[in-house]
């Protein structure tokens, strides 16, 4: 493609024309030449094609270096000055600027390709940090609630303002056969200090519609809320599902799909992981029960990471039980504050929170690293514990301090994790109304760190606190003496149980026994040793304190365990029975099905 000598100059002009750098005279001359020279016309076309090719070439997956950069920057020598400054900056003005910036992004085309579940988690968390306000409307279709009602339809409206203002209105649009069916209308209004919920009060679903109890509404108010006191009344996963995506271990990335014309990412996970999202629009009232292993499909908007749609299904059944679709969502510039003005009605409870400065001794224990979150409310809760919190957008971090050994809650399954260079933390996955958390012990103190940050970030926060110790072996509470099981006791439990009875790879990771007036209790928690899948624990529990199975309104399944009548709660994944010796036993295994749990129960009983 070597041009004739006289064409060489014109080719250079063609190049300059492409960059709009040609003088009018040169342009005229070039035009004349192009009229005569086919080779130069081809060259011109090729140049345009080349530029298009260069600009349209598919891009490689682009890594997210934000966390790494911000971490390096905070270690810069002038860090102290810098941090002090950004705390003082007028946040409101900057936040407004960021919103402008965020909404002016060229959208979908710039979104990086995603291959890894970890990318989804990271990107969603990145997006959530910048979020200030949110407004959305959802359509909900529900099936399987009652045999006489094929499907129910709802409209849900959500308003949110970071970090703790939330309003939800769920309106039942179902055409019920008669007027005696209760309408499942739900309202929630939350502000930093007060939450209020209104929900229908009605008979258990099975008793409908011919129920003797008069249907009505129940109202509850919580005043003096602690910061971030639970996910049910400020269920921010409906905005960006941080809690749901916090651990990417069991997240299945299906691929890129379009929902209502928007580029979305389709991911799959189980209900036991996705409940913070799925239950966000069902904080009260009566709904179809869902099971831990139900499949949840979520379509996340690739630009904002808002959930555009999610469904809950139980293969092989054909139709999903729940289909939720966003019909409208946006980030309004402002939301009238009155929207978040929670009434004080119905049953009023106090969270007991009082704003206070942190005692000097505790200030030294605060984390060096807070994942970039800013200090937020701090004070004392109703139990007299000191509470500090940090937030940014949707993300929060809350630390509760108390004296070592003063709390009996070492009974919960905890995974011992190494945090920082020399500390141990006790990690617990999210549970209904409780976020993920790590407990630290040391210097006669106990610190509970709760957060919707990513698990790695939560561990880093814990590692940056100067608490280096182990959980106390013995605690006293209300006349009970609670002892953590020793390593050798756990090994005995392994020998006796895990190898023969439990699924492969399960090891006894923790346990406790308690004694006091009225009896003794023993709990052992088994976890798969190589993974940290949330909700995969198996917990064995025994008590001489319980003499009959506690009543419940759940839909239970009756099962025989070696001659004892046992009952199975699908919702809790728990099998309970009183054995031949009169001892209450329970196996909780949300990730196993009934036959597997019954198998474990029979093996234990016959041993």
């Amino acid at each position, binding site marked *: 493609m070597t041009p004739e000598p006289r064409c060489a100059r014109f080719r250079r002009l063609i190049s300059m024309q492409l960059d709009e750098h040609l003088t009018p005279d040169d342009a005229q001359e070039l035009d004349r030449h192009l009229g005569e020279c086919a080779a130069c016309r081809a060259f011109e076309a090729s140049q345009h094609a080349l530029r298009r090719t260069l600009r349209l070439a598919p891009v490689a997956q682009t890594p*997210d270096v934000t966390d790494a950069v911000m971490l390096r920057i905070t270690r810069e020598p002038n860090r102290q000055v810098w941090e002090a400054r*950004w705390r003082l900056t007028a946040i409101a003005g900057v936040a407004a*600027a960021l919103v402008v910036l965020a909404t002016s992004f060229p959208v979908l085309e710039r979104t990086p390709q995603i291959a890894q579940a970890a990318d989804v988690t990271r990107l969603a968390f990145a997006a959530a940090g910048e979020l200030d306000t949110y407004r959305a409307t959802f359509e909900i279709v529900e099936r399987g609630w009652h045999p006489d009602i094929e499907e129910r339809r709802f409209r849900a409206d959500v308003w949110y303002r970071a970090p703790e203002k939330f309003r939800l209105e769920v309106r039942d649009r179902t055409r019920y056969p008669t007027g005696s069916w209760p309408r499942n209308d739900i309202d929630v209004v939350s502000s930093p200090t007060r939450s209020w919920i209104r929900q229908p009060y009605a008979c258990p679903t099975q008793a409908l519609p011919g129920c003797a109890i008069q249907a009505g509404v129940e109202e509850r108010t919580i005043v003096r809320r602690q910061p971030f006191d639970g996910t049910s009344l400020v269920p921010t996963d409906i905005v960006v599902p941080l809690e749901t995506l916090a651990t990417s271990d069991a997240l299945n990335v299906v691929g890129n799909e379009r929902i209502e014309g928007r580029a979305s990412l389709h991911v799959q996970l189980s209900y036991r992981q996705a409940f913070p999202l799925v239950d966000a629009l069902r904080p009260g009232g009566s709904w179809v029960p869902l099971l831990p292993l139900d499949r949840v499909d979520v379509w996340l908007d690739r630009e904002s990471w808002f959930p555009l749609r999610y469904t809950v299904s139980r293969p092989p059944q054909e139709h999903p039980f729940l289909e939720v679709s966003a019909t409208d969502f946006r980030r309004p510039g402002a939301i009238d504050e009155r929207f978040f003005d929670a009434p004080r009605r119905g049953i009023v409870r106090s969270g007991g929170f009082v704003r206070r400065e942190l005692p000097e001794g505790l200030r030294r224990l605060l984390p060096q690293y807070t994942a970039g979150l800013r200090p937020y409310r701090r004070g004392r809760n109703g139990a007299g514990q000191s509470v500090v919190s940090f937030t940014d957008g949707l993300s929060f971090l809350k630390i509760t301090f108390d004296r070592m050994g003063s709390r009996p809650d070492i009974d919960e399954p905890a995974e011992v994790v190494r945090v920082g260079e020399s500390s141990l933390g006790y990690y617990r996955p999210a549970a209904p109304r409780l976020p993920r958390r790590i407990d630290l012990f040391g210097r006669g103190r106990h610190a509970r760190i709760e957060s919707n940050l990513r698990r790695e970030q939560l561990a880093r926060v814990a590692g940056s606190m100067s608490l280096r110790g182990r959980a106390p072996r013995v605690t006293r509470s209300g006349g009970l003496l609670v002892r953590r099981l020793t390593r050798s006791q756990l090994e005995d439990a392994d020998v006796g149980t895990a190898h023969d009875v439990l699924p492969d790879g399960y090891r006894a990771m923790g346990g406790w026994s308690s004694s006091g007036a009225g009896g003794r209790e023993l709990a052992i928690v088994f976890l798969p040793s190589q993974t940290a899948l949330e909700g995969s624990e198996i917990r064995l529990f025994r008590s001489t304190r319980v003499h009959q199975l506690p009543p419940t309104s759940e839909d239970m399944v009756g099962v025989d365990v070696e001659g004892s009548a046992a009952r199975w709660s699908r919702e809790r994944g728990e099998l309970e029975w009183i054995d031949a010796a009169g001892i209450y036993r329970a196996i909780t295994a949300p990730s196993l099905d009934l036959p597997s749990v019954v198998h474990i129960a029979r093996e234990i009983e016959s041993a």
Partner: protein
Amino acid sequence: LIALEGEVEEPDPRVISAARAGDARAFESLVRRYQADVYRFVLHLIRDPQAAEDITQESFVRAFRFLRRYRGDSRFTTWLFSIARNCVVDETRRWGRRHRVADRVGRERDASMSPDQTLAVEVREALATLPQELLEPVVLIDVFSLSYRETAEMLSVAEGTIKSRVHRAREQLIALLGPQGEERADDA
């Protein structure tokens, strides 16, 4: 996904001011916003994804250090690309000029690739054959829509030299990619 490169949008001046005044959120938003562009730019120059990621990170750390000196004389994106380009220069000085490029060229094609992916590989391979002094101007001008003047300033050469280099680069690329470039570009 097809990324439409081309002109990179400028940030809101208020965000730059806030970042310069030490606002971490503002700077973080700049990182988040421009990291993909910086990474792609660096990847065009160095062609090693791991090295490109490291250099992208380094570029923003340096940008943070120098941000107080940025007075808005040039576009922010041009300023940021200059920093990234300096980081690339440092890196290649350290490791030998574009040492990793040769390893990768010719190994990327795969029969199972889509036309888009094949085209992308061909473009990358064609760009890889250009000497650095031609590669930089054509990437800045044709991929990221910088002007001759901005490119000349960034590369510290005369504007006329840039015109000439970008022209030579295009000639070489057209010779390599051939006349089918047009059809393929339309497909893309």
